[in-house]
């Protein structure tokens, strides 16, 4: 059964719409810049992927997710308008929901009951569903940084099981003192902004985003056709050194999609910019593709690591790439590291046929995820 991506919406560090995201992909620009909210010395870096408007108020998670959903729903009106609301499901992907509320509550700053309610991901999901006419099943997925990929998988499964006729898949996480302080304590931030797969990379850059997809059954331009997951069972924060588990997730996704490695035209890597993640990912790609690895690029130099939104917003980049017949570049990549994928793209490549795309994700807790998309 074919699962189609019918519409997309995104609020990111490079703009408030998917069109602005596409402009940035074409120009290979970075949205990472010094952020005035994080100038305290406790922060290892304040070069972050902040949205222009997303962090005002006490409920930025709802705000960003709502904005992305509005854009996606507007594109899918002709489909959603014909469905009874109880046939529309919503799957939310988030790692920290509205963590802003916790900061406010512990600092005795104003915090509305709704903002406090949205500290709990499932309640945020329920309120987003109510606001967007989704009276079908509601799920909140939180599997660290692969949450977005798993949420798309869950949405596809709900459709395949007949639990809904359309699924709104939305991912959100916001820049917060809570998260930036934590990564600073781990010494995990790149002071000048992340540089995925670069020789001199030295850490990640947190970002924020709201990103949404509308999934439906039936033939469409871009389909979700495979997924796979695995766990390193090795370390909570450090990826396995050999990439074997990520390779396992990739092979599982290819099996579900009934494809061979040679069928993949483009890989959108997780590419956090940390030493170990990118090295592990390079090894996993080599294990699966050998010397015939397709073109690879990563988006976190453009958007930062948007956590619960990452899998969804980076999947949107893949959809845009296929539709525009281009392969995105890797913003902020200067000199590829030894061992990086041979066809690692610094700049976008245009006028190419992109039919099958592999999207990767990894996260704390040793989790790995892979998603396969088909275009045309």
């Amino acid at each position, binding site marked *: 059964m074919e699962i189609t991506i019918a519409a997309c919406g995104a609020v990111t560090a490079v703009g408030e719409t998917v069109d602005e995201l596409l402009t940035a992909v074409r120009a290979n620009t970075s949205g990472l810049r010094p952020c005035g909210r994080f100038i305290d010395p406790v922060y290892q870096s304040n070069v972050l992927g902040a949205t222009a408007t997303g962090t005002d108020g006490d409920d930025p998670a709802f705000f960003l997710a709502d904005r992305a959903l509005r854009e996606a729903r507007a594109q899918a009106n002709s489909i959603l308008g014909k469905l009874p609301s109880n046939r529309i499901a919503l799957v939310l992907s988030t*790692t920290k929901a509205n963590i802003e509320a916790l900061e406010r509550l512990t600092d005795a700053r104003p915090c509305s009951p709704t903002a406090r309610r949205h500290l709990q991901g499932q309640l945020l999901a329920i309120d987003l569903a109510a606001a967007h006419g989704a009276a079908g099943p509601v799920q909140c997925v939180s599997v660290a940084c692969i949450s977005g990929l798993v949420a798309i998988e869950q949405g596809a*499964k709900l459709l395949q099981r007949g639990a809904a006729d359309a699924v709104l898949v939305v991912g959100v996480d916001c820049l917060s003192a*809570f998260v930036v302080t934590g990564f600073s304590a781990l010494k995990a931030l790149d002071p000048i902004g992340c540089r995925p797969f670069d020789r001199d990379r030295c850490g990640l850059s947190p970002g924020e985003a709201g990103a949404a997809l509308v999934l439906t059954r039936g033939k469409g331009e871009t389909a979700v056709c495979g997924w796979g997951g695995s766990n390193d069972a090795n370390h909570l924060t450090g990826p396995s050194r050999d990439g074997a588990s990520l390779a396992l997730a990739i092979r599982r996704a290819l099996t579900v999609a009934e494809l061979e490695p040679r069928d993949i035209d483009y890989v959108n890597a997780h590419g956090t910019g940390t030493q170990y993640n990118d090295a592990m990912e390079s090894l996993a790609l080599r294990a699966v593709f050998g010397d015939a690895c397709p073109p690879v690029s990563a988006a976190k130099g453009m958007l930062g690591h948007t956590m619960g939104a990452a899998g969804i917003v980076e999947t949107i980049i893949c959809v845009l790439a296929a539709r525009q017949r281009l392969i995105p570049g890797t913003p902020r990549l200067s000199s590829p590291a030894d061992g990086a994928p041979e066809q690692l793209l610094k700049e976008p490549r245009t006028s190419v046929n992109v039919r099958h795309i592999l999207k990767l994700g990894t996260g704390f*807790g040793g989790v790995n995820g892979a998603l396969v998309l088909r275009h045309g």
Partner: protein
Amino acid sequence: MADIVITAASVVAPQDVGRFRFGIRFGRLDPFCQLGLVAVEALGIDFSTQPRSEVAICVATNAGSLSTDVQYWQSRNEPGGVSPTLFVYTLPSTVIGEIAIRHGLTGPDLCLIGGSAELLDEAADLLRRNEAAVCLAVYCDVVSSSAAETIRLRAEARACAAYLQRGGSGGYTLTKNDRDMISLCARLCSLREKDHHHGRVGCRA
């Protein structure tokens, strides 16, 4: 559609933590991960009998890591600032990593925030799709008194676990009416307790 059976179930509370032996690392885990690990340990499963890459872990939690979130964020004013170790436990899915590391399980993972109602459905669906041979389903909630006060939730700590497989000669066959994992695990354990086969913690269904 293939039958899905539960061959082991457990229900645990914080007082059960001391009944099992863990390594020295256990003391460094947050209470949420500790209780989740104990629920799995109480199943008494020997994971060496099957390929560990074929064991999926599905977790559901209502409060997730909120108690650890509160503890972590309150610690920022202490000398030295926040604990990087504690930061890692501010993800609700960290319990999956702890279970995977302890038992070497490299199958696919899922973590749902919310009640336990969808957990059994999702675990069974994963098995019916042959995405794993067996699935560890774990429901865990720990709300500390500090978190309860800050977030206005009810303080509680409870966990249960079930070991699910496709068809087979033994075990409890999952039905469409088995929506709530907590009550199902409690029912399965209670049945065994009456038979005097096992104690309150853990049972073979």
